[in-house]
């Protein structure tokens, strides 16, 4: 292979590594995992002497040294949507890629396919959003009627937050509206006699919004020495919790004033 072809090949490899990293990061992987994977993918091919990857929750920076050249790539990440299945698939893919002699073009095709997979359709997600709410309200001491009410409320909460997310609205407004819908519907359900404890219904319904991913990843990033990522994810967790509290609080305030 002559020199120009090899240079091209190295660039394609870098593009592949960053694409894999982007899919993982925007579906909610920890940053150290993305860094590890990019470095492993790059080091698995050709005579690349030196690779360095720096990943934060909002961007990927990679540069590698090949022969006399230094090539770098910068990728900005905007939206984060949690999809653990894609993380798992890209993880498997990178292991496969490193251990075999897969062609880079074929690998890029595979990655693009992974990016397009939708593991569960929206209806399933809505239904299970209802199931979270229903079972958590039972877990916190709700009655059977509360179970039914929070099932419907939970479905509505997930529908609202999914639709707002598709419109590209910030996560603050998103969670705020989700929580507001949860409390509004719970109060209404109790008023028409479906459900006895509005508090249990509300608590169950906001469980699908709580920042579990942000908490987990903030800690795991911080523990692996990525303080920037840890801080920014910790901030995300705090703001999410606050937005939920504000959403619930606003409706309760209106309720206590007697306006609903």
């Amino acid at each position, binding site marked *: 292979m002559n020199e120009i072809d090899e240079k091209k090949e190295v660039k394609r490899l870098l593009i592949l590594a960053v694409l894999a990293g982007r899919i993982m990061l925007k579906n*909610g*992987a*920890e940053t150290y*995992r993305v860094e590890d994977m990019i470095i492993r993918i790059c080091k698995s091919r050709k005579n690349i002497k030196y690779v360095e990857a720096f990943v934060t929750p909002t961007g990927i920076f990679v540069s590698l040294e090949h022969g006399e050249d230094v090539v770098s790539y910068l990728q900005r990440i905007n939206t984060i949507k*949690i*999809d*653990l*299945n*894609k*993380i*798992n*698939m890209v*993880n*498997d893919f990178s292991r496969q890629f490193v251990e075999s002699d897969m062609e880079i073009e074929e690998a890029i095709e595979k990655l693009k396919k992974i990016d397009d997979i939708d*593991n*569960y359709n929206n209806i*399933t*997600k809505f239904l*299970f*959003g*209802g*199931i*979270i*709410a229903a*079972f*958590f309200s*039972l*877990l*916190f001491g709700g009655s059977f009627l509360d179970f039914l009410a929070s099932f419907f409320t939970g479905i509505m909460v*997930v529908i609202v937050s999914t639709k707002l997310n598709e419109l590209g609205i910030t996560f603050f407004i998103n969670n705020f509206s989700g929580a507001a819908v949860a409390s509004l519907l719970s109060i209404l359900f109790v008023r028409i006699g479906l459900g006895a404890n509005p*508090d249990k219904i*509300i*608590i169950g319904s*906001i*469980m*699908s919004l*709580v*920042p*579990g*991913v942000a*908490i*987990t*990843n*903030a*800690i*795991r990033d911080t*523990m*692996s020495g990525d303080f920037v990522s840890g801080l920014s994810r910790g901030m995300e*967790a705090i703001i999410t*919790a606050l937005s*939920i*509290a504000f959403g*619930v*609080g606003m409706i*309760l*305030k209106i309720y*206590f004033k007697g306006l609903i």
Partner: protein
Amino acid sequence: MEFIKQFVFSFFGTIGASILFSIPRDSIIVSGTVGALGWMTYTAILGRYSSPVAGTFFGALAVGIIGELLARHLKKPATVFIIPGIIPLVPGAGMYYTMLALIEKRFLDAANIGTETLFIAVAISIGIVISSSLSRSIKRVQNKAQ
């Protein structure tokens, strides 16, 4: 009976959460079990020492350790099991009651419940910290041995 009920409720609750996070299909039951085991640890500690913070800590620790072990065993990222698993422990109820106390102008209660909520969140973090750093050091020792 109460125990079985709690197990079933937290099992299905965690499964719901894991579908929202779009977990791989072959891990749904496993992650539900992880979440339920974490919750059972929480209730066991809570019943014995009546401290929600300690209960949450041990619950999260259990979820973390089981998650890391399963991750190694099933060759999947540990977060696949840990993220849905801690959902039952996240203090949604604490957040709600803090807000309620604030709105009813019971500021003393708000401070009490709010602090406890914060401590519960910290307890989850510490539980995960301990389990994940344990798993890292074990990995490092194993790598050296090879």
